[in-house]
């Protein structure tokens, strides 16, 4: 497990009071009832502060944030772009 994934999993499990084993990597967080409008705001804030990047409105899509795997993929992409 990468450091990014560990951080994301830790945030989600702590912030939303979930057990780690409830967090399947590819499961939809909205359909699980984990992410609501408030939860999305908290998740974006966490991502921006922890990884020191700005998430533009057009990136706040389910394909970027609706599962652990998608969040990790988005972050990998954004952080790789930032390094270039």
């Amino acid at each position, binding site marked *: 497990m990468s450091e990014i994934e560990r951080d994301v999993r830790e945030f989600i499990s702590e912030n939303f009071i979930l057990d780690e084993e409830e967090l399947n990597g590819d499961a939809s967080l*909205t359909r699980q*009832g984990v*992410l*609501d*409008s*408030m939860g*999305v*705001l*908290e998740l*974006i*804030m966490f991502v921006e502060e922890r990884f020191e990047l700005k998430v533009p*409105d*057009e990136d*706040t*899509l*389910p394909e970027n*944030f609706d599962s652990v795997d998608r969040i990790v993929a988005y972050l990998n992409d954004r952080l790789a772009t930032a390094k270039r």
Partner: protein
Amino acid sequence: MTGSVAGAPQIGFDALRLHDPAATADAVADDLRQAVRGFRRRGAVLGLSGGIDSSVVAGLAARAFGPQKVLGVLMPESDSSPDTLRLSRLAAEAVGIETVLEDITAVLDAVGCYRRRDDAIRKVLPDYGDGWKAKLVLPSVVDSAAFRLFSVVAVDPDGNEHRERLSAEAYLEVVAATNFKQRTRKMIEYHHADRLNYAVMGTPNRLEYDQGFFVKAGDGAADVKPIAHLYKSQVYQLAETVGVPEEIRSRPPTTDTYSMPQSQEEFYFSLPYQAMDLCLYAVDRGLPPASVSDALELSEEQVQRVFDDVASKRRMAGYLHAGPVLLGNVGSEPGAGDTDPETAG
């Protein structure tokens, strides 16, 4: 049902039509009278906002108890629209009920409602202050598949508009501060209910009740909610029958909570109330997005996003509807108190 296209049953706005509004009003008034009698209360108190819901409930309560046993409480504050008081009085006069004016600005000021809200807005708009006006807005669920994140829109004293996405902290603090308004109003409604031995009316329609468009222990608190089973479109249909003036019947719904005018679609719902009602009606019956897409003039994908938003808000509303959770057995009757709390569970 209005026909069938591509296999999906199509429904239109006529699905929400009340067959006999006068009969519905009589039935609701009968049920209301029974409910209040069951509480051993003698009449009804309600807050009047000048909007359609409270005006219709005033008319229903007047029908149920007689206008002399209904009190309308007018509770404007410094952010209220200039129309609020006038339309509230208009509604009360139309159905013949007494009113009492309770300006809640001083209470809100004392508890720090405005200061706390403005401090929170300054976390994202540092120049926000005296002479500015603001509201919270959400992007359209129809126009984009993106998650909907709240922004604050503010106008400075020179008329320049500013817009910033809210942080989670700022959003929560703004909402927590403005919720003082609904909770203060409910406190005053219960004061009058207690002194008159009346019951407090809640005024949410079905859309608001189902989707959690209310403040817990604020406008969500009541003894009876006479129109919570009626779609908002149906509340409008009852309005003329129960004597609501035309000016109120033709006025678009607003939140009347922030200092800038704010529609309910900007702040909460995905679509105007007529369309939301139809979506809720379809969701309630397990119908697919295709069943209402023609009537709404939206794609199935867009309607699906509205349906998803309805489901999401329902999940959030669960908390708002819930009473306190008891973690031990306190007996079958509230207040029975025959169980040792040390060994309960």
